[in-house]
């Protein structure tokens, strides 16, 4: 499918003291077939930290705001459905 692509790319590495930081980002490109429209969504994924003694660590980047909003809206929807079910079986 060439109208939808998902790829992970590495950004410019930064050296801080004895460690090198390489940020990774994920991008989703959607080109709707039959139209001249595009949509691109990029988000940070993680940072790869390399120490001088060849140790590599991956620090994930979590989107706390998005996760919290999804949780609240999901809970609201679930709560509404449960209230409706409770109301109908009372």
């Amino acid at each position: 499918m060439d109208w939808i692509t998902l790829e992970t790319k590495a950004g410019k590495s930064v050296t801080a003291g004895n460690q090198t930081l390489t940020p990774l980002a994920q991008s989703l490109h959607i080109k709707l077939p039959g139209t001249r429209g595009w949509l691109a969504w990029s988000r940070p994924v993680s940072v790869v930290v390399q120490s001088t003694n060849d140790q590599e660590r991956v620090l994930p980047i979590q989107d706390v705001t998005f996760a919290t909003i999804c949780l609240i809206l999901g809970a609201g929807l679930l709560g509404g459905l449960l209230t409706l079910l409770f109301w109908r079986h009372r």
Partner: protein
Amino acid sequence: MINEELTQTNQPQEIEIVQETMEALLAVADVSAVYGEPIEHGDTIIIPAAEVLCGMGFGLGYGEGSESVADREGKDTPRAGNSGRGGGGGGGGRSFSRPVAVIVAEPDGVRVEPVVDVTKIALAALTAAGFMLGMIARMSRGEISKH
């Protein structure tokens, strides 16, 4: 005849140019847009990270009026010479960026600090609460049937 050839050759070329420009604009919303320039403060380096959403589209149209009957018959009437051609196009786009986290690199280690948008979370909570209250109110008024 020459006009027809021009229309046929120019249209795909123009579309291609706009398409290439749009693709180049979308490429900007890539890793370089997600991570900002590192900010140095003493021994500490801060890299801001954001989510980038970009959408755009365009449309082009061409048209050619057919030769009028008066033109074809060579008559000198008010409708003579009414044939012509024209084209138009338009496009639009929107990009949106939201801070997600900050990477802090200090001499004793690297940590990721999330950016929490309290306003958005509060708005989501109010929306969810409004939905729940609205449902309860409709149920208590009997607007939603039990069956």
